[in-house]
């Protein structure tokens, strides 16, 4: 899209509700001013906007976001109780746990994802999974360091005919694996539907004594000498990291009549080695999607030059 086209689209959005005017017409006006009369783009935009303000009988203050909220990207939401405008795709809809909530789920834009809640009493149109919406006047909220947005009675929902490539908030960390924490190795999870809690001594916190299902995971610590990161490998990640598959781990535990031999074996294989992992964060953990063992021979040259120079 050309620069002028972008400006035209933005102007069009501001007047779409008030005027029957196409993006093409607006672009043509801009084009005349900029390319024929050599008016700077910013001045051309101001002039064209003023023309449409007159036509619509509006004041400049009426434009954009009602109360003049800031249009923000999801990754920039970093404080509660701020009124903002967002453009986002409905990534997932979840089952509301309360009648007060009409819809709850996950919104995403290029920069990341955020939870949203839409109250029943706010009487807003239904959002569809996969739909892209411009949401004006939503309010941010925070719970235990995680942010969300709430749609409310004053929110304006506008469905857009476009798609957004939702960005993940993956982080990449590297360092030496200096610890494998308890609760790693061969574990048992609660078999109840939608409950995947890890059993403690055969008991689930929620469902009491149950016949658990075996799984593998590693809760580890990567340390680069300056910062520490807790990292969580799921079954696939654990198999990838240690080369020990679930069936093999079960056999090992069976032979030893003890599940802890699995974690011991894993510790011996991976502790003290260097890794680079990436994945989304959850609480204080990095959930490992991809991992790489850093086994290249290290290159001392650059550090040596620096060391000699001071």
């Amino acid at each position, binding site marked *: 899209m050309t620069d002028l086209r972008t400006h035209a689209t933005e102007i069009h959005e501001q007047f779409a509700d008030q005027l029957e005017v196409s993006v093409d017409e607006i672009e043509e006006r801009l084009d005349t001013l900029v390319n024929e009369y050599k008016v700077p783009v910013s001045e051309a935009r101001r002039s064209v906007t003023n023309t449409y303000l007159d036509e619509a009988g509006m004041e400049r203050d009426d434009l954009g976001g009602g109360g003049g909220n800031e249009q923000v990207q999801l990754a920039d939401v970093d404080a509660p109780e701020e009124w903002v405008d967002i453009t986002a795709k409905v990534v997932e809809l979840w089952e509301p746990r309360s009648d007060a909530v009409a819809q709850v789920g996950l919104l995403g834009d290029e920069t990341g994802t955020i939870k949203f809640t839409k109250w029943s009493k706010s009487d807003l149109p239904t959002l569809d999974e996969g739909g892209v919406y411009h949401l004006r006047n939503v309010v941010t909220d925070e719970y*235990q360091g995680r942010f969300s947005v709430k749609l409310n009675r004053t929110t304006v929902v506008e469905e857009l005919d476009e798609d957004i490539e939702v960005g993940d908030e993956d982080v990449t960390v590297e360092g*030496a694996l*200096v*610890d494998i924490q308890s609760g790693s190795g061969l574990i048992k999870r609660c078999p109840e539907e939608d409950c995947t809690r890890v059993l403690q001594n055969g008991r689930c916190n929620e469902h009491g004594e149950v016949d658990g299902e075996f799984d593998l995971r590693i809760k580890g*610590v990567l*340390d*680069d*000498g*300056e*910062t*520490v990161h*807790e990292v969580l490998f799921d079954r696939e990640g654990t198999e990838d990291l240690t080369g020990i598959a679930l069936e093999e781990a079960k056999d090992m535990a069976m032979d030893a009549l003890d599940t802890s031999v699995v974690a*011991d074996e894993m*510790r*011996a294989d991976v*502790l*003290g*080695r*260097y890794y680079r992992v990436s994945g989304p964060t959850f609480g204080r953990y990095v959930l490992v999607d991809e991992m790489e063992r*850093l*086994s*290249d*021979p*290290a*290159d*001392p*040259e650059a*550090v*040596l030059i*620096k*060391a*000699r120079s*001071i």
Partner: protein
Amino acid sequence: MATTPTREVARRVFAGEFNDSTYTFKESDDERAPVYVLLPTGERANRVFVVGTLMETEDVGTDSEYWQGQVIDPNGDRFYMYAGQYQPDAAAMLRELEPPAYVAVVGKPRTYETDEGEVNVSIRPESISEVDAATRDRWVVETAERTLERVQAFEADAPDDPDDGATVDEYVAMARQQYDRPVENYRRLVVEALESLEADDELEASADD
């Protein structure tokens, strides 16, 4: 919400500097507050990560097993570590490993004063694992980088120039006060360690000819 205590980072330090880190302190009066050794380059350490060659292991216990391990770094300096009944995994590793072997050790710095009044610094290992040469080489370069960063930060904090604009780091100031050891020594450890890696490379290269 109760704040979970953050895990202490494992410092990277060559044995020559580690063994000079004889001054210990706590940050609070709490009995369970973590104990730090002060690195002479001006950083506190409550945990270290070292990779080197395990040279000797010996059960030095009288009543029960108490294993000593000696790990050498590229400068020929040794880390001393002790593991007894309260570090069963580390003690088992020291019992079973056949020196020489490359090992990675995560542990806590400990100091004790000898009858002669000398302070010895050692490691109480949390874990010991056998690793390969590439891991060891990577540790040497990483430790060189971290040490060099500390040396640079130390030197940027000139004590005789209160107006140099640099904020005086708490631990740099503490190191200046507690130790009388030129940090130039530790820069030299960095250079020597890295040169030893390069020499290894050249040896391998000429062996290939």
